């Protein structure tokens, strides 16, 4: 017989006792009906909230502890250092401060208050942006200069903040195995001193770099980051159409989006259509009182050209 503890044990024991009873209540139709009602009522709130759509590891991740967040940041440091091994920082300290002020202000309005976000400009003429778990966001000089105003720059940064806040890279690692979540598996890798765990951690860093520089995020993650970014722009007073107009102008020229190796990456058309639909559903449009901060943007960015 299984050992049960606490109230669960008492309930199971009581049920087993009733089963042994010749006048077993579970065989009484009226009580069976009542029992079914109890079960349905108990499940109803979860069904209504859509919780059943979440996988177990996602449910577990919604209640992460301090150790998991520290693991996420430590892992992110290793990924960020690898990004910086490929791309050098821009030497323009004024531009670095401007992007840091804007990015940090936007991150304060996201839903990961436990993270410290860091922002940096990379000395690369290509139009690109990257983020590492835990709050490390990088944008290339090419992307900064491709923006037409501060709202568009904010759009690129909020898109990357969304990848961090939703732990997209950690999910792409798909390392949870027998663990409850990818994040808890990562926590164990980082806490272990065994060589196998260290190898697994190094492989996880490699895989994160593959996602960032080669395979890209999956379609749903990319569209989710676009959606979160646009809503965050709207809530912080920026022009909510900024991401849509930036992508419409820049994305077709971005080889990453259309190359054969990016089959999982949504094309420019798909992202544009999704953003237009979101703007329509949310009744969002460019209004005169939306902030684009073009003057401030030009003061900081044009001097860096």
């Amino acid at each position, binding site marked *: 017989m299984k050992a049960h503890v606490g109230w669960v044990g008492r309930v199971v024991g009581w049920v087993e006792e009733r089963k042994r009873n010749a006048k077993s209540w579970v065989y009484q139709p009226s009580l069976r009906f009542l029992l079914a009602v*109890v079960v349905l009522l108990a499940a109803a709130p979860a069904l209504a909230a859509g919780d059943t759509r979440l996988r177990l590891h996602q449910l577990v991740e919604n209640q992460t502890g301090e150790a998991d967040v520290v693991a996420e940041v430590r892992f992110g440091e290793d990924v960020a*250092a690898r990004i*910086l091994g490929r791309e050098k920082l821009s030497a323009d300290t004024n531009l670095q401060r401007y992007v*840091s002020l804007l990015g940090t202000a936007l991150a304060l309005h*996201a839903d990961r208050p*436990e993270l410290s976000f860091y922002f940096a400009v990379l000395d690369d003429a290509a139009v690109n942006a990257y983020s590492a778990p835990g709050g490390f966001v990088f944008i290339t000089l090419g992307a900064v200069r491709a923006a037409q105003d501060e709202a568009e720059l904010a759009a690129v940064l909020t898109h990357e903040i969304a990848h961090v806040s939703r732990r997209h890279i950690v999910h792409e690692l798909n390392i949870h195995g027998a663990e409850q979540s990818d994040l808890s598996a990562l926590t*164990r890798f980082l806490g272990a*001193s065994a060589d196998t765990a260290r190898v697994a951690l190094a492989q996880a860093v490699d895989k994160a770099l593959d996602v960032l520089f080669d395979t890209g995020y999956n379609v749903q993650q990319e569209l989710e980051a676009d959606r*979160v970014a646009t809503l965050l722009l709207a*809530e912080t007073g920026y022009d909510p159409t900024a991401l849509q107009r930036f992508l419409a102008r820049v994305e077709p020229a971005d080889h990453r989006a259309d190359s054969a190796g990016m089959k999982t990456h949504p094309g420019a058309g798909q992202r544009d259509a999704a953003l237009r639909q979101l703007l329509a559903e949310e009744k969002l449009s460019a209004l005169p009182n939306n902030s684009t901060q073009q003057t401030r943007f030009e003061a900081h960015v044009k001097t860096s050209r």
Partner: protein
Amino acid sequence: MTTKKLLLATCLLLLCGPAAAQTLYVQSLKAKLHAEPSSQSPQIAILDKGEAVELVEKNERWIKVTHGQQTGWISSLVLAGQPPAKKISVMDAPVEEDAAKPGARLRASSNNTAAATRGLRDDTRARMSEEGQADYHALETVKSQAVSEPDAAEFLSRGAKQGQTQ
């Protein structure tokens, strides 16, 4: 008969359950309480991080809440069922040579957080830096360029004021 009463009482309790208010907390620095579920609808109030609201109803992207005597909509992006977590500092988490057993779940506590904070070992980091695969010095530069949160918040509010006068 006792069993019937017990089950009936459970039913009643469960029926009353969903009617009980669910408390949510603001996770972002500020959260706008809107008249309608749209960012461009009029603002009723601005709530600070950590403030509690009561859930009334929700859709995919917006949650209708009450806050004191006020009722309105807040973006679901910035509300959660628990108070906002404190800022995590990995600098405060010392590294220990404490092996975690395979399958052992590290829980959040001051005792075992440290064991979960190593990342790649220092010798691995040094080797990768020497080989040019990673640049931990540049990472430290990025961290040193971080701006304070009050400065960032002031930057955003200054921009918003300028935007209103443009």
